[in-house]
């Protein structure tokens, strides 16, 4: 990646965010349903009270003005107050975000740990039963709806076998002081290996639900790039030099085969964040995804707007990170 490309990416970020902010603002306000009506649904409020609340929330002003207020505040880091929680949106999000990031990271880890060995093995033993099985499994994995797969896992491993909890993130008796927000880290910092294991067992099923379909796609990408690389002259030359097989496969071949996989992985990470909305809902995982889903139903404009903006920032940053990693892996690309 050239320096020009880097600058281009940096310019891109605010433009993307501007676009996203407009779209999410319009979508939220134009979808039918009134947050005030939803909030007051079972409270027999008078029309005056409803108006007062509407004024209080700033919903009585014209649309462009509301957008400008929203953007102006957002630029100063103020995303408003969550209608439902009656607390700053920023606080609500920062409480929920670590749970989602932890889930996504573990899912990515599962995806990579499963996909790299399988993709390499399938490429080395092309047209073997392993290769065919992987192709079938990948197709299955890619077309699997996350909520269905998640429910299936719950039914089998949580309800039938009882190996894992049905949902949630950690039981009350295993709660530890909040340090990083990542339970796998905080339980260890608190010196509670028992709590660590319980957090891990809560994490297992949702992370597998997210990670396995991602692994399927990634394994396909690695298989095809690895097959291509294995046919390259430099692999033949490395073998002709008498290098050990392991070095030929994992240094000469895999290093080059992973370059396209990195880009796919970054896009995967982005879609895992999106996929986590469904998985978090199925598993009762207290992350950002679930709070956004609830926010959409409650027409909780400030919360959803801020969260979607955050998703966009993460997505663009991930792609930027993929470009940097691509440059690090590929010496022909220099910053």
């Amino acid at each position, binding site marked *: 990646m050239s320096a020009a490309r880097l600058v281009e990416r940096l310019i891109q970020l605010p433009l993307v965010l501007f676009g996203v902010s407009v779209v999410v603002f319009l979508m939220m306000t134009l979808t039918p349903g009134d947050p005030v009506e939803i909030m007051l649904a079972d409270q027999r409020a008078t029309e005056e009270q409803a108006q007062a609340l509407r004024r209080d929330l700033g919903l009585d002003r014209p649309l462009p003005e509301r957008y400008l207020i929203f953007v102006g505040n957002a630029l100063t880091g103020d995303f408003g107050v969550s209608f439902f929680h009656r607390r700053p949106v920023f606080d609500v999000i920062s409480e929920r975000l670590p749970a989602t990031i932890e889930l996504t990271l573990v899912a990515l880890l599962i995806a990579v740990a499963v996909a790299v060995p399988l993709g390499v093995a399938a490429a080395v033993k092309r047209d073997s039963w392993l290769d065919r099985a992987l192709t079938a499994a990948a197709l299955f994995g890619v077309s699997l709806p996350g909520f269905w797969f998640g429910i299936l896992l719950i039914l089998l491993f949580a309800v039938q076998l009882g190996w894992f909890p049905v949902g949630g993130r950690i039981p009350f008796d295993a709660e530890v002081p909040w340090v990083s927000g990542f339970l796998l880290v905080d339980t260890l910092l608190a010196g509670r290996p028992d709590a660590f294991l319980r957090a891990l067992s809560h994490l297992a099923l949702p992370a597998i639900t997210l990670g396995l379909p991602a692994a399927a796609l990634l394994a396909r990408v690695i298989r095809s790039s690895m097959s291509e690389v294995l046919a390259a002259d430099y692999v033949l030359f490395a073998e002709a030099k008498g290098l050990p097989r392991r070095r030929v496969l994992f240094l000469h071949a895999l*290093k080059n085969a992973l370059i396209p996989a990195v880009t796919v992985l970054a896009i995967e990470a982005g879609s895992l964040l999106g996929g986590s909305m469904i998985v978090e809902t199925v598993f009762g995982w207290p992350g950002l995804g679930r709070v956004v889903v609830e926010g959409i139903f409650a027409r909780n404009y400030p919360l959803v707007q801020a969260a979607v903006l955050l998703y966009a920032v993460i997505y663009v940053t991930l792609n930027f990170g993929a470009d940097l990693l691509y440059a690090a892996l590929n010496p022909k690309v220099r910053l």
Partner: protein
Amino acid sequence: MSAPLLSVRGLRTVFPTRRGPLAAADGVDFDIAAGEALGVVGESGSGKSVTFLSVLGLIRPPGRVEAGEILFGGRDLRRMPAPELRALRGRMLALAMQDALSALNPSLTIGTQIVETLRAHGIPGDPRAEAVRLLGRVGIPDAARRLGDYPHQFSGGMRQRAMIAISLAARPRLLVADEPTTALDVTIRAQVLYLLDELRVEDGLAVAMITHDLAVVAERCERVMVMYAGQVAETGPTAEVIARPRHPYTRGLMESLPRLDQPDRPLHPIPGQVPDLAAVDAGCRFRNRCALAVAACAAPVPLRDVGAERLSRCIRAEEVS
């Protein structure tokens, strides 16, 4: 001739195709002595590269060496366990490829790619110092500083020389050079060929020079092997073969090339096309393009002694002129 370093008999390498097995090398016999340079000529698809990749044990599945003997220093490489053959590759049998840009790994430095070869074969001494010496020997200036460069940072000629330095790093006994100088300009080509000559004389390195370039063969190789459609058409001392071909294909090859000493001589391309290797019979494979072909050519034609250390796969070898 003393006992050859490499002796190949009846080599048959096949690749499965939809129309049945294709023998890209079929009954190939030849010898190379230590210190000798054997030129291997023939058009694309004649089986030159396949023959020598078979020797190195580098035929990729689903292709495989189906029959034959590959004796190297008296041991049959085909019967050797894979790890032993791997240890021999690079150390005893080395390969230099046509295109260094694709033969060198784009994401590893030149230094890494030399040092790993030295380490894989347990070459004593400091590998980095040895790498610098090797690069210096192929004429790469300021070699110590360039170890950290990636292949794309080298010029084309330097890349080719660096690759040859890697091939020669563990001081092999036999170098299979597959069109190693085609991509080089004249001065660098001469430099590389001179280096190979030097190693042949000093170390007794044997070189199998696979090439389209008959001039290189005429200049550098004592003996030449002409291949056609997966078989050896003829072998013999280079000067003899060029002056008096003993196979109609060799003669056709000579006549199709321009000659500096006879600039006005018309060029005669060989009529017809190379036969489909998946559909050849047991007879002479050149007969449908050959002016000397007779009915007997449809019967199997063995490689036979035609005198003066020469072998030909033609029943009318003596009539070729």
